[in-house]
């Protein structure tokens, strides 16, 4: 059964003089526990799509259904991870982690314990009383992950959360995110332009065209790759095949559209 369903979703951005079509007729259904990656060049409306699913902006046309209920009517919880951690520099780590629960007025002794446990789980024990500027980029992004997970979101939206990190940290964090998501059976949508990242993490990969943003191909990741840890996926022979396939499709897409590099 489809957990999250998008039906003919389109979105327009208006400015004084003109308007641009960011998304055109996106239909998609995602199952519970699935990991989906959306892959495309800059300006294909990936982030717009995430913002719509997050309920931060409302689509101009079409429906977004969660458990068959329109998104804006259901009181679901979701987690959003951005390109940078956006931890509040004036709050201690523990307060940063608990901000989502504080907004939802759910902070208690129990949730505090859970926060400490999760921080420990991502390899940041005994750091709850420090401030974000005392931590490295990778540590901060892990805090942001805990901040997202602790609200117990039904869907995790990941907007290139690894792109601001150095390569080594990025690979380690991919493994961690993958492990935690599987452990807690979370549904996740990752937006990225990194083909390797998409292959190593996802069950399905959605390729998007630019101008206007629409789905060009949906690729099922082979079972062998799906069940492997992200770091090890990259060593599989079928990884390279899939990589080349996606690379070719993306290039074909950008050539027919004549889109410019950004």
């Amino acid at each position: 059964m489809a957990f999250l369903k998008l039906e003919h979703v389109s979105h327009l951005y208006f400015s004084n003089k003109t308007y641009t079509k960011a998304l055109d007729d996106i239909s998609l259904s995602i199952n519970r526990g699935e990991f989906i990656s959306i892959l495309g060049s800059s300006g294909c409306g990936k982030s717009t799509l995430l913002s719509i699913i997050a309920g931060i902006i409302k689509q101009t046309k079409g429906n977004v259904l969660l458990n068959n209920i329109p998104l804006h009517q259901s009181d679901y919880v979701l987690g959003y991870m951005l390109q940078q951690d956006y931890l509040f520099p004036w709050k201690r780590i523990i307060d940063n982690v608990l901000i989502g629960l504080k907004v939802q007025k759910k902070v208690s002794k129990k949730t505090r314990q859970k926060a400490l446990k999760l921080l420990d789980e991502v390899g940041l024990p005994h750091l709850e009383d420090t401030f974000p500027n005392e931590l490295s980029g990778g540590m901060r992004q892990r805090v942001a992950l805990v901040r997202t997970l602790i609200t117990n979101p039904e869907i995790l939206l990941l907007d290139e959360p690894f792109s601001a990190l150095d390569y080594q940290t990025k690979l380690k964090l991919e493994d961690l995110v993958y492990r935690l998501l599987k452990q807690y059976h979370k549904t996740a949508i990752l937006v990225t332009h990194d083909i390797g990242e998409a292959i190593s993490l996802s069950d399905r990969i959605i390729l998007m065209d630019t101008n206007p943003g629409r789905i060009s191909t949906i690729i099922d990741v082979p079972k062998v790759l799906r069940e492997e840890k992200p770091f090890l996926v990259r060593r599989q022979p079928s990884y390279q095949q899939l990589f080349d396939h996606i690379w070719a499709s993306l290039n074909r897409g950008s050539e027919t559209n004549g889109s410019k590099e950004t």
Partner: protein
Amino acid sequence: MGAKKHELKLFKAYQQNIIRERKWTFCWQIILFISFFILWELSSRFYWIDPLLFSSPLKVMTLLIEKFKDGSMIVHTQVTLFETILGFIIGTILGIIIATFLWLFPRFAKIMDPYLVILNAMPKVALGPIIIVALGPGYTSIIAMGAIVSIIITTIVVYTGFKEVDPNYLKVLQSFRATRWTCFKEAIFPATLPVMISTLKVNVGLAWVGVIVGEFLVSKEGLGYLIVYGFQVFDFTLVMSSLVLIAICAAVMYKMVEKLENMLIIKN
């Protein structure tokens, strides 16, 4: 071992150099200060300037001592200080509150925009007579003058600060379904604290302008009153004494706000 000794020696020399530089600057500041008063005194004694108009430091000092002894100067200084501090606090807080409303209600902000521009461009002291008519001749009017000079500029600066906070902080909170007020409380306000603190320094100076002009217009006490009174009875020793006191008080207040600023910044 020898190398380490040499390094230490260089470090000592560096430290001594800094201290010497500081002493030298301070020395010149003192020299400038003293020679200004000596020159003033001499030129007044030898009639290079008219002593009736420009008085002299000794006369000013004698007058100040006399007036402080009979307590009248203390009263005047207290009144002005009280008005200035209150005007400063009210102006700053009201400015921040208005800015908050502007941010919370974007439509309200759009409507208010041209009025804010006009109010900001307008010399606020020109409103003096209206305020006095409206609030009556007394402390209230003068405090209102002190506040009104800083209120609009505080509103504009702080509101601009609110708008410049990285929208991604809001995105984080919105993804948790935060209300606009929660966004304000958790992200906008704390992120803009440095901006608000820096307006304090500007407002201290502005509050003095408002209060002194207010006292010029209507008052029976205060340092601004003394200036106008001295001017009317042609007692320029009194005018100069008041000016000296204002300079000292304003400088002390400014320094205190600066201290407060440092404290708050370290805390954040």
